């Protein structure tokens, strides 16, 4: 019996719905009360447009915004808060890299490498960058158990490769990728490394500097923060090479009639009124997780995932995708049920109060390789317990009997 790491009462939505088994944290996390409080506090006491007004309230809003950036930078092991840029989410971060760095540093004859497990946010963004620039788009294939095929990746890396993108943790498979190894391989051939941390930061202790990547992106809403805020962290060297992508207020220094000089980091990449309230909310989510301890979060999810994999494996007709060793994966179990399509499964599970994601998980290239149109995905977080797993298994058995009856009746 594994109880929750964080009490259910920390999450108002879960507290109000005691029968709900929320197993879709990989899509978006439920919000701790402290995050909602931080948002309300900002709008109630500190709301003004940061960086603009010369009055105390605006100064306070500015300070909250800067404090939030510092908290989040600390949470991901970034020494320089100014290298931690606020964006809408991982998708916008990837686009910022493609337009801000890719357009000026990648040309015809160069190559871009992604993996077959990349989320559409990076897969499509860099595929389209390759199309625009005339660069070759190379895809590292996966092993049968859903890990990046490192031998295949090695064959793709040569001096033409300028950018290598991969997820720290696969959203569809849960695979935890060997970041250090990939970084070393990519850097040896002179490529920069873009790591999608959307599925890692909420579940593992992450230190972007220790990982050695050039860019690291994640979304706030997956770690209990608000929707619409995320982070692109980059090394100072990379961010200084990057051109502004969006123009407007806040990002400028001096605007002449014919030319403009741009503000310092991080403001150069944050045009317009910043999303200060959501930054404050995200910082509260980071503080919440720091209070629990990311190592404990990982250990909780690892133990639950191991239990979940054992239960799923023991059921006839279930095919689990990704590594079967819980050490190699985060709290994600993607599976297909023979004869029951993922969407039918999701509807039946929903009737049991079990929320899972069914679909292609924004990873169509991966689904093609797995040979399935869709999978069902159960994902865990700090509030998950063996109760949730039991409810999932109970509902799966119901789905199985419902569809098996079709043969006999």
């Amino acid at each position, binding site marked *: 019996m594994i109880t929750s790491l964080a009490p259910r009462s920390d999450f108002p939505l879960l507290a109000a719905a005691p029968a709900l088994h929320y197993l879709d944290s990989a899509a978006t996390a439920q919000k701790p009360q402290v995050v909602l409080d931080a948002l309300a506090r900002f709008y109630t006491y500190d709301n003004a447009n940061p960086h603009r007004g010369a009055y105390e309230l605006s100064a306070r809003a500015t300070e909250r915004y800067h404090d939030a950036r510092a908290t989040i930078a600390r949470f991901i092991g970034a020494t320089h808060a100014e290298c931690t840029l606020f964006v809408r989410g991982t998708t916008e971060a990837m686009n910022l890299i493609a337009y801000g760095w890719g357009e000026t540093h990648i040309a015809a004859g160069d190559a871009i490498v992604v993996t077959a497990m990349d989320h559409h946010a990076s897969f499509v963004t860099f595929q389209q960058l390759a199309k625009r620039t005339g660069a070759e788009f190379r895809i590292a294939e996966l092993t049968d158990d859903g890990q990046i095929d490192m031998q295949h990746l090695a064959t793709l890396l040569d001096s033409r490769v300028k950018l290598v993108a991969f997820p720290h943790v696969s959203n569809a498979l849960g695979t935890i990728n060997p970041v250090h190894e990939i970084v070393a391989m990519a850097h040896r051939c002179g490529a920069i490394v873009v790591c999608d941390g959307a599925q890692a930061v909420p579940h593992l202790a992450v230190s972007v500097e220790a990982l050695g990547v050039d860019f690291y992106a994640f979304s706030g809403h997956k770690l209990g923060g608000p929707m619409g805020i995320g982070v692109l962290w980059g090394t100072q060297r990379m961010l200084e090479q990057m051109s502004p992508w969006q123009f407007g207020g806040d990002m400028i220094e001096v605007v002449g009639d014919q030319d403009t000089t741009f503000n310092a980091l991080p403001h150069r990449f944050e045009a317009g009124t910043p999303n200060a309230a959501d930054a404050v909310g995200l910082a509260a989510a980071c503080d919440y997780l720091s209070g629990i301890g990311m190592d404990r979060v990982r250990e909780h999810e690892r133990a639950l995932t191991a239990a979940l994999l054992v239960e799923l494996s023991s059921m006839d007709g279930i095919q689990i995708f990704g590594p079967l060793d819980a050490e190699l994966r985060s709290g994600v179990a993607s599976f297909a049920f023979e004869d029951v399509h*993922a969407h*039918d499964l999701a509807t039946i599970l929903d009737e049991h109060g079990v929320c899972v994601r*069914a679909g*292609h998980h924004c990873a169509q290239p991966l689904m093609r390789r797995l040979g399935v149109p869709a999978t069902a995905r159960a994902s865990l977080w700090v509030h998950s317990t063996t109760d949730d797993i039991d409810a999932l298994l109970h509902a799966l058995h119901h789905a199985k009997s419902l569809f098996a009856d*079709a043969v006999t009746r």
Partner: protein
Amino acid sequence: MSDLDELYQSIILDHNRRPRNYGEPTASNRRASGHNPLCGDEVTVWLTVNDDVITDVHFVGQGCAISKASTSLMTEAVRGKTRTEALGMFDRVHDLLTGKADPMTERKTLGQIAALGGVSRFPIRVKCASLGWHAFRNALQNEIASTESAS
């Protein structure tokens, strides 16, 4: 019957397991495909229309039980119908799926298709059930079109 039993009636499960008129026909004169990009369901419908009468219907598709069964039921229902009759049926199925028609009263006239009435309790599954019907309607108009705007 629970909502779930209503949705997955034996007719639906049977048509999912043994879809009728499944496979690409050797001859046809109308064709359209439908795709739901949100869930990845795909269907292609082939029709043979002679003198305004639908004389043959086939389909191939990939999707959930609801979409497969609904399309299979459609192929049986529209065969032998005139274009006007079939389009009238499309409208009534749409009403059935969106809860605007009562399955009990429709049972007499719609026959087995009334089994799709259980879908109305599951609004997010309406697109699954209507995908094949939209492909059918597009095929009648001889257009190759996506039904992602299905409603």
